[in-house]
Each structure stands twice: as C-alpha cells, then as structure tokens.
C-alpha cells in the first residue's frame, strides 16, 4: 500500500471515532454549538483527505453528511435523533468501506447503491440535492477518456478484450501506463520493478522487451532496456505520488471500453488529432498561462473586495501580479505601485496573455516542475523547524508485538547463561569462570528487566479504548428495548496491557447486554417500583496492584436467588439437597454455569444462553476472575479482576513421566509430600486429607495419557491447585522451580489441544507446555 493511502486510513480511523463520539454527545446536548462545529470539522477534514483518492462514492456520501452538519451548524436545522441515526449509519457504512479499502485498495462493488440510499436520506432535511449541482459535479470530476495509444498493443490482447467487456458493463474507465525507465536508472538507485509493484489496484502488468536486443559484444548488463506497461484503477493523484521521481518516464492514458475496442479492431482512435495525453509532467505552456491568469484574476478580485488600500495588501498583490507577468513572459515592474496602476497592469496583462505562447518557467534559483529532486523528502526529518505538529508517535501494533517477542527471546538467551555457569563449574571445574558468568548474568538480567518493563509500558492502553464502544451500543440497544438508560463511565484512564484490553471487549459487551436486556426494567416498571424512570449503568475501572478491576453495575431489578436455584434444579445443574442448602451468594454464582440462562424468553440481544459461562471462560483464560453481587430489586454488579498484563506469566515447573510441564503460579496453593500410606480413597477417587479438608488427588500422568507409575512407594508429591474455587491435588513426579515465561499460544494443529494454554521456551532450549488446568481436570474426570 502506498504511504499516502495508509496515512489516510490511519487518519480516517481517528476522524471517524471523533465524529461518532461527537454525534452521540450531540444527541444529549443538541444545542452545543462547539460540539456541532467539532463534528462538522471532523467530517470536513475526512472529506478533504478522501478527495485525494479515487473513491467518488466515499467523497459523495461524506459530502452529503457534511452538508447536513453544515446546515445544523448554521442554525438552519435542528438536529433530531433520526438525523443522528442517518449520520451514524453513513459513517458506519464508510467504516465498512475503509476496511475493504485496507484489504483491497478499492471500494467494495455495490458501494454506489448503498451510498445513494443514504445520500437521499441525508439530503432530505436540507431540501434534497443542492441547488448548485455544478458544485457537486466538481467534487466528482468528469472522466476524461483518452484515445488509445500505440503502446496499447503491448498489452495482452485477450486480457484487453475481457477488460473492455468489463468496463462496458460497469461503464467505467481504467488507467493505462507505460513506464520506460532510463537505461542508467540502476546507477541512481532506482528499482523500476519494485516501483511498478507498488502501484495500487494493479490490474495487469507486462514487461516490454526492446525491439532489438544489442549484439552480445555490446551488451551492457547494467543498462535497463526493459519497459513496463500496466493497468490500474488507482487515482491520478496516487500515481503522481508514486512516480514522483520519474514523472518524465511515464505516460498515462485513461481509457474506456470503446477506446479499447477500437484499438482491438484496428480502427483509428476517435481523437486522432490529440494522440496521447502525455504524462503527468510535461508542462504545456498554456497551463502556466492559465495559472498566471488565475493569479491575475484573483489579484483583481482581491483589490475589489478590499478597497482599504492597506500597504501590506497592496504590496502582496503587486508581488503576485509581477510573478504572473514574469511567468507570462511580459516582465512588468510594479514595485509599490498604487491601486490604479496595478489594476491597469492586470487588465493589460490579461488582454495580452490570452492566447499568446509563453516562455517556460525556469528562472534561476526557482524550481521548475521537471527539476530533478534535489533532495529527498527524508531530508526534512532532521530539519528542526520542520514538522511543527504532534509529538506523539503512532506505531504499528505489529512492531510493538515484535519488540515484545524479542524481549522474550532475550530473556531466554539470558537464562541460558545460568546453564552455562552450571556447566562451567560441573563440566569444566572452573568455579571462577562460573562466578564471572553469573556476574555477567545479573547485569544482563537487570537490563532485560528494565527493557521488558519499558516495552510493557508502551503496550499499556487506557481502559477508555475498551469503554469507547459502549455509548453507542447502549444508545442503540436502549432505544430498541424502549428503556431509558444513562451510561456512566469511571476510571477510563486506568491503564492495562493492550492484549488485556482487547480480550476484555467481548466479555464486557456480554455483561452490558445482559444488564440492558435482563437487569434494567422498562421505565413503567421502574416507576411502579418507586425508582427513577431512567436507569443507570456504570462501567468503572480501577487499578489494584498488578491487577485491574472492571465493574459493570446497574440499578435494575437484580437477580432473584430463589428463581435461579429453581431454574438450575430444573435444568439438573444442582441436586435437590443443594437447592435447599445453597446460600444466596452461591445461587447467584450459578448463572456462570454452562447451559444456564435465566431469561424465560430468549431475546435476540443476549443470545441463547451462552452468556455468562462464556464471560467466565474468557476472563479466566486471561488469568482473571469474575464475581457477581446482586440485591434483589436494587441491581447487580459484576466484577472482573484481570492481570494488568498477560505478556509475562509465572509458571511452576513440574515433571510427570519424565516430561516437564508448566502450571500458572496463580493457581498453585501449596506443594506437599504425603506418605503413600496417608492417601485415601473415596469411591473411585484418590483423596488426601489435609488439615481436616478432603482434597481429591488426580494422577496427572493418567489424565494426560502418559505411562508412569510412582517409583517411590513411600512418598507422593502432590501439587495443590485451586481451580474455580475448588482445591485439587495433582500427583506429579517432581517439583522444579518457578520461572517467568512469555507464553505463546498454541498454533497450527496444536491449536486444538485445549489441555495446553500455550508454550514457552526455557533457558536451556526446552519447550515447556503450560497446562490449562480447567481442561486438564475435565480430562481427568473423563478418564475416571
């Protein structure tokens, strides 16, 4: 993708977010002039940038939205929520298009139809199509179709006829280019093939051999003798930008189906007198004259509009007129002239310059259009006065991920030193060397830790990134449900790792939807219950040590523990005994059980009962926990507790049947050695009694289907873990140390191995499989 387009896409993202947010706020405060202005400006800037590319539908739709906003801004129109809906829909459509552009560098097929409908809607309140249709036509420049050049013959004929047929059906045009690199281009560090490959929306590419290769003796392998022909849908602006260094070596024509067909039939082009609309660059003298005349007319108009004869203004006009005169080849001295003299000069120049041929513009010291680039734009980077703008650096997410990966690898390499130190002592008997290596290690360890902290800091994002989508979601859903809801967000500035923030999105949507759908009552019900008609939904975040706590709370009807228990009993999730003895807190927790859904009628909002168990599963996958508190009639609060970062995980290494595995340290309660004689058995389950508590013991080897039986009949090593609030003992062969690892998700075929949450590379080069305890316990239950 060319840098201009990727710059546009990045900018568009920010602008659209700004517009969306503004529109939502505007609905609450329709009279806020500053807000209207802000939204308008966002849309306006977006339109301006989009005009650089050949996305006519995009520009037209934005234009319609902008006109509506302009009318609001001018006070001609009061914004209502119908209009806000249309505007939001327009920008949603645009966002979809941009996703398509990101992938394919062009708008989706059908964009015109989608846009037309919305444009009509947007224009309806401001009286349909604008009066000056001409102004609109200007936004979408009329297509100029050129005559087919001779070099079209170098394109593949079959491809041309297919293309002609396609252009015919879509009544569109395509740009055809012929790029003849200089023979000595390689000595100027140009790479013609690379350049051509960068052409956006490239439809066809062919290399043209010289008509006759030079004799072998004269052949210079460093000379570029090949030229390229290619076809693209890219806009002229993009092509100009791409070929800016070699403008004089490129010829462009824009052809429609007719021109191509005539070429294929061997008929002469329609506009034979105007052979080829040559290039971007070859400055026709008449164009300079036209520009000069434009400057003269501007000067004239500007004098009319400012009769005050302010000295600075007159001098400025004088200068412009002199410059235009010089360009027209009629040097005219106008230093500090008065108004009448300037006006006379302008009139004389305009009269003289009309059709006359003019001299090319290459004055000394001034740049000519075709001047070789004296200095690449890169040179501006070290120019201190350049780039007055922002100090914030936007970095591609992938680059940060890459950095994180490298930090991980550095950690592994660093850990390798400890093994080396051991080897130095044990294998080579040099304790001194071993100690020196260890010294070296601790220095590296400190730097690696700091580096890791620095990279982690770069990855931190504010929670507002996760919260941002909710004003819109809550607004749309509450309207559909006929509920009045005020959304309050707190602690948006709390920071967490970007992976955590990203993974938080789906669970939060689930929780908010649940609140809206089941928790919050309709205004009538609320009033009847003696509550204010408008409900309050709060999203709050707060940092807590190395964790972040996110709460979703509503002041809705709360959860009825009795009803939950009954439902769970009916579904067979709990026994009759549990039904009677279960506390209210435990009952509320039942909603997290798989296959539980309290809504009697499944609504299209909360889905089909896959809600809360999915939330718990995804939060636990992040190494977090979910709890729910509820007061019947007063509301519900769901609390997510997540690690600030999930990039580095502490695992405890254990071995089973000679193989090492990692277990997240968060889950580990304790490690114990139990004499075999103390192991008990309840039904078919091995258990161990610790401090009066009966803990089931699972043979990890059996669960993982690995052949192993404890060698030492007297001592059993048991790792006690806590999963879902339940304590379970794992029978292992041996305990090892705890290590910090960077967990990589299981990939490829292993992605389906749910019993592992990921892999990590150990310092000695071994790959450690980290167990997903929940799945492993499930496996053990199945094995038993």
């Amino acid at each position: 993708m060319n840098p201009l387009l990727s710059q546009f896409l990045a900018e568009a993202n920010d602008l659209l977010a700004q517009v969306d947010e503004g529109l939502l706020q505007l609905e609450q405060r329709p009279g806020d002039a500053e807000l209207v202005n802000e939204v308008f400006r966002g849309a306006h800037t977006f339109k301006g940038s989009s005009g650089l590319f050949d996305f006519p539908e995009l520009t037209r739709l934005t234009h319609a939205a902008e006109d509506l906003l302009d009318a609001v801004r001018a006070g001609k129109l009061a914004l209502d929520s119908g209009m806000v809906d249309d505007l939001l829909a327009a920008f949603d459509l645009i966002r979809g298009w941009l996703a398509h552009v990101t992938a394919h560098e062009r708008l989706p097929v059908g964009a015109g139809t989608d846009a037309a409908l919305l444009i009509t809607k947007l224009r309806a309140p401001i009286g349909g199509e604008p009066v000056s249709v001409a102004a609109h036509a200007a936004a979408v420049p009329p297509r100029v179709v050129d005559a087919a050049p001779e070099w079209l013959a170098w394109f593949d004929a079959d491809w041309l006829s297919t293309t002609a047929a396609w252009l015919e059906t879509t009544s569109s045009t395509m740009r055809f280019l012929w790029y003849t690199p200089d023979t000595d281009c390689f000595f100027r560090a140009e790479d013609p093939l690379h350049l051509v490959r960068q052409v956006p929306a490239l439809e066809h590419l062919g290399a043209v051999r010289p008509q006759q290769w030079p004799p072998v003796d004269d052949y210079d392998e460093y000379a570029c003798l090949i030229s390229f022909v290619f076809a693209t849908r890219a806009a002229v602006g993009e092509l100009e930008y791409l070929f800016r260094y070699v403008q004089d070596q490129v010829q462009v024509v824009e052809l429609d189906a007719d021109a191509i067909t005539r070429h294929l039939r061997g008929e002469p082009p329609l506009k034979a007198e105007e052979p080829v609309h040559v290039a971007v660059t070859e400055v026709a003298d008449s164009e300079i004259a036209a520009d000069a005349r434009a400057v003269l007319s501007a000067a004239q108009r500007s004098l009319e509009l400012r009769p005050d004869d302010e000295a600075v203004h007159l001098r400025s006009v004088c200068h412009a007129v002199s410059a235009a005169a010089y360009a027209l080849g009629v040097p005219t001295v106008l230093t500090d002239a008065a108004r009448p003299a300037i006006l006379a000069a302008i009139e004389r120049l305009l009269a003289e310059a009309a059709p006359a041929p003019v001299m090319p513009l290459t004055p000394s010291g001034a740049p000519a259009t075709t001047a070789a680039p004296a200095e690449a734009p890169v040179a501006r980077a070290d120019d201190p006065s350049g780039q007055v703008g922002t100090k914030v650096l936007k970095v591609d997410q992938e680059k940060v991920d890459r950095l994180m990966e490298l930090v991980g690898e550095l950690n592994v390499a660093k850990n390798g030193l400890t093994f080396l130190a051991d080897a130095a002592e044990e294998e080579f008997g040099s304790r001194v060397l071993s100690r020196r290596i260890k010294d070296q290690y601790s220095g590296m360890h400190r730097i690696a830790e700091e580096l890791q902290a620095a990279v982690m800091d770069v990855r931190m994002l504010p929670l507002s990134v996760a919260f941002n989508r909710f004003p819109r979601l809550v607004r749309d859903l509450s309207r559909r449900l006929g509920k009045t809801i005020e959304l309050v967000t707190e602690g948006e500035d709390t920071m967490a790792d970007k992976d955590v923030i990203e993974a938080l999105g789906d669970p939060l949507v689930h929780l908010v939807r649940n609140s809206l759908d089941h928790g919050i009552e309709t205004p009538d019900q609320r009033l009847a219950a003696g509550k204010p008609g408008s409900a309050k939904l709060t999203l709050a975040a707060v940092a807590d040590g190395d964790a972040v706590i996110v709460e979703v709370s509503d002041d809705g009807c709360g959860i009825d523990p009795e009803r939950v228990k009954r439902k769970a009993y009916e579904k067979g999730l709990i026994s009759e005994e549990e039904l009677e003895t279960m506390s209210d807190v435990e009952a509320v927790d039942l909603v997290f059980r798989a296959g539980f859904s309290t809504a009697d009628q499944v609504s299209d909002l909360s889905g089909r009962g896959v809600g809360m168990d999915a939330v718990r599963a995804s939060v636990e996958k992040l190494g977090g926990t979910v709890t729910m508190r509820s007061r019947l009639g007063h509301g519900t609060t769901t609390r997510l507790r997540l690690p600030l970062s999930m990039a580095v995980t502490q695992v405890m290494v254990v071995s089973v049947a000679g193989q090492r595995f990692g277990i997240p340290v968060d889950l580990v309660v304790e490690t114990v050695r139990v004499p075999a004689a103390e192991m008990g058995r309840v039904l078919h389950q091995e258990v161990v009694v610790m401090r009066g508590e009966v803990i089931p013991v699972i043979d990890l080897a059996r669960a993982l289907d690995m052949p192993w039986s404890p060698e030492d009949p007297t001592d059993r090593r048991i790792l006690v873990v806590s999963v879902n609030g339940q304590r379970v003992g794992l029978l292992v062969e041996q305990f090892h140390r705890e290590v910090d690892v960077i967990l990589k998700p299981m990939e490829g075929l292993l992605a389906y191995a749910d019993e592992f949450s990921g892999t990590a590379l150990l310092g000695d080069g071994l790959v450690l499989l980290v167990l997903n305890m929940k799945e492993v316990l499930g496996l053990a239950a199945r094995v038993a």
Partner: protein
Amino acid sequence: MTSDTATRPRVLVVDDAATVRMYHTSLLAEGGFQVDEAANGLEAVEAAMTTAYDLFVVDVNMPKMNGYACVEALRSATVGTPAPVVMISTEDRPGDADLAYRAGANLYLVKPVAGDRLVRIAGMLTAQRGVPA
C-alpha cells in the same frame, strides 16, 4: 548543498488533515522546495515568527484558528513584501473564494489540486522573491 539549501524557496504547508499535509508536502519537496508543516493556524503563525517563508499554502477549515484568520494574522505580522498565500480548500461554493481574497490570499484553489499544478503555481509565485525587480 548548503548554498543550494539557502537559495531554495521555503514553503509552509498549513492543513489539519495529516493526509493532505503529507500530499502537499511531498509534492512540493519533490518540486525542489524546502517544506515545513503546521497543523493549524496558530502553529502556522508561530512558525512564521521564527522562520522566513517564501510561500504559504493554507487550508481553510481548521481547528483553533481557521485559514482566513491565519492569513490575516500572517499578513499583519509582516514588514516589507509579504510572502504570497495560496489557499486550498474543499469548499467550492460561490463566495468561498471571495472570503479568501478578502483575507488577503493571492490564489484560491479547490482540493484536490493536481500535483504538477501546485508545484507550477508555487514556482511562479516564488520565482521573484528576493530578486530585485
């Protein structure tokens, strides 16, 4: 190279849209100009206080200080012959150009401006700067 840098005209591109700024800047830089950028009128005025420019390319609709106000501010701060101003805007309604001319712009163009045209006009307007008439 230093003597070359000294003689090459210096342009300030003022636009709040990063994409448009990048487009204009790269075109002008290719055309042999030294180019600085400003993201709004205030930044432009600030830049003009410390650096002498031979040309301003100014957008109309910008936050903080719009293009018209920016041009007037740039003008009122100059002594001697002011640098020419080209205003480039997406607005093409009747009357928009007049607002620019009243503010003191020397030329009003509607976006998008073809690359060669922008460079050509910039060349024309800066051709005589510093050259005694």
